[in-house]
């Protein structure tokens, strides 16, 4: 918009002259957007950011390093990391199969990849719990060998593997299918073995997508609640996840404590996102 409307040559700046936007609705659409974003996202998050300091910075630190909270954060972190790593391999493999092969049932498999997105977490939670409980289909089998899956960190890990799978597959799949088969064929004609082709040609190409899928799966795992709490058993220090501790603190009306745990979780998530973002930038610089 012109900062100043000149009135030389008898030119009177009319209203329309100041409106340099041709497409209508700027004020209204941006107004609605900012209203929603402020009321639904920004103000509530400010409430979260301002709450933990009630008992000073040391109160915040004390909460985070409280034995039970620290154990929960550690369990959430490790299970999410491990589940995301497993999904990294399995996700690439399934994406590869879906992109590179034709086989009966392919479209069905493709559609069902999104099931963990579509299925309400409480449903996945009770279903997984029923399967892996000591009297369940799989849980019963392992119970005979004295291995507990449900009500242990293994259960949390399994729930997070379930929830994280679509993130990796859906990140990698489009990149793989865009990758020209000719590039692979060129590598082959130059004498590369299939493994070499994968390592030197395909992997670098899908790396950025892989990293973003990984970070999404990890962040989801850190915050996941519904599909985990049923199978986890929620034994303090053993199989209690960080989000559950927020609920526990709220039940004790310890708002500051709940907010501290929440911020602790966000800090871990953002640290991972930031680290992966840096890695991605590094790859981007190499032109990948």
């Amino acid at each position, binding site marked *: 918009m012109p900062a100043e409307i000149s009135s030389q040559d008898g*030119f009177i700046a009319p209203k*329309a002259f100041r*409106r*340099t936007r041709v497409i209508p609705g700027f004020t209204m659409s941006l107004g609605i957007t900012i209203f929603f974003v402020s009321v639904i996202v920004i103000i509530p998050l400010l409430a979260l950011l301002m709450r933990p300091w009630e008992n000073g910075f040391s109160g915040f630190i004390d909460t985070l390093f409280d034995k039970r909270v620290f154990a929960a954060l550690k369990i959430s972190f490790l299970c999410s990391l491990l589940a995301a790593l497993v999904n990294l391999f399995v996700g690439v493999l399934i994406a590869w199969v879906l992109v590179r092969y034709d086989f009966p049932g392919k479209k069905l498999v493709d559609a069902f990849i999104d099931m963990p997105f579509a299925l309400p977490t409480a449903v996945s939670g009770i279903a997984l719990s029923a399967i892996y409980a000591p009297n369940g289909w799989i849980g019963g089998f392992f119970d005979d060998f004295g291995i507990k899956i449900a009500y242990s960190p293994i259960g949390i890990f399994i729930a997070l593997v379930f929830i994280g799978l679509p993130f990796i597959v859906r990140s990698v799949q489009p990149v793989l299918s865009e990758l020209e088969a000719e590039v692979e064929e060129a590598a082959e004609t130059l004498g590369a073995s299939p493994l070499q082709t994968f390592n030197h040609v395909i992997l670098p190409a899908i790396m950025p997508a892989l990293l973003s899928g990984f970070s999404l799966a990890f962040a989801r795992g850190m915050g996941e609640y519904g599909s985990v709490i049923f199978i986890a058993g929620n034994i303090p220090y053993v199989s209690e996840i960080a989000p559950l501790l927020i609920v526990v603190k709220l039940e004790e009306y310890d708002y500051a404590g709940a907010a501290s745990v929440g911020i602790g979780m966000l800090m871990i998530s953002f640290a991972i996102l930031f680290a992966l973002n840096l890695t991605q930038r590094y790859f981007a610089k190499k032109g990948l």
Partner: protein
Amino acid sequence: MALTINNLSKQFAGFAALNDISFSVKEGEFIALLGPSGSGKTTLLRMLAGLDYPDKGTIDFKGQNYLSLPVKERKIGMVFQSYALFRHMTVAKNIAFGLEMRGKNKPKREEINETITRLLKLVQLEGFEKRYPAQLSGGQRQRVALARALAINPSLLLLDEPFGALDAMVRKELRRWLRHIHDETGLTTIFVTHDQEEALDLADRIVLLEGGKIAQYDTADKIINHPKSEFVFDFVGSGNAADADIKGEIASINGCEFPVVNLTNFSGRQKVKFRNYDALISNEEKGIKAQLTGIFASTGFLRFEAIDNGGHHLEIIIPERNFDHSLKVGDRVGILPQKAYLF
């Protein structure tokens, strides 16, 4: 004068997209806005349409202050570079859109249908009413876009790079046809192009822009034969440069004398420019001494490349029938300009 533009200026982030532009257009004229990319030609067209506003200046159209009118009240027929056809509407619906938007003044159904039929006939697309844009070729889409723009009975027709997205054959054909439509409708028409051949061939007058300023506003003939600046000379055709001794209206190089067109009172040694077709090649030691580095055949003429003693490249074209077949690559020749410009 139908359209008068005065002192139009516009800054974009500190750089002057348009710098004090003034010119006027007569009723029914066909005007080209020509210039390299970044010269401001599209910005100027968008201002006429009301899609962009200047920082300063006036646009007057038949006594109306155009800048005070929003886009929809200007009654402008605009053909976009991408055509911007509504992809979910048939050809007929696209053409009818502007009429449908008139609210209470919306014409009757039969009138709209009549307009569609008439315009499709004008743009030679009879029978295409029910097609969707995706089912048309580039040239056909262009014509639908024009029909849609004409449907609102505009007082001014604006076209942004109307042939930009088409291949060479279709381009030439549509060019003639657009001129024909203009002559038939008598609409004041302004189009943007970066192709000097297109502008020279089509337009009554050409606004040649350079860096947001008008370099020259003239007919094709004037722009070709009387360029006002070296930029204009270079932009509309190829040329060569040489140092010549100038005395009055005559320049001479090494015994070869030739007239200087846009003479000044300058006298002495100065760089002149001449068109690649305004020179002859001789095997005498006259004019610009050079060595032939290439001879290329084309339809109807031959193109010579040469290098002078100072290492400058020269290009001359000569009609095939006038060609001295004894010349070959490597020969030392004299290049004789027939007419030159001094800037």
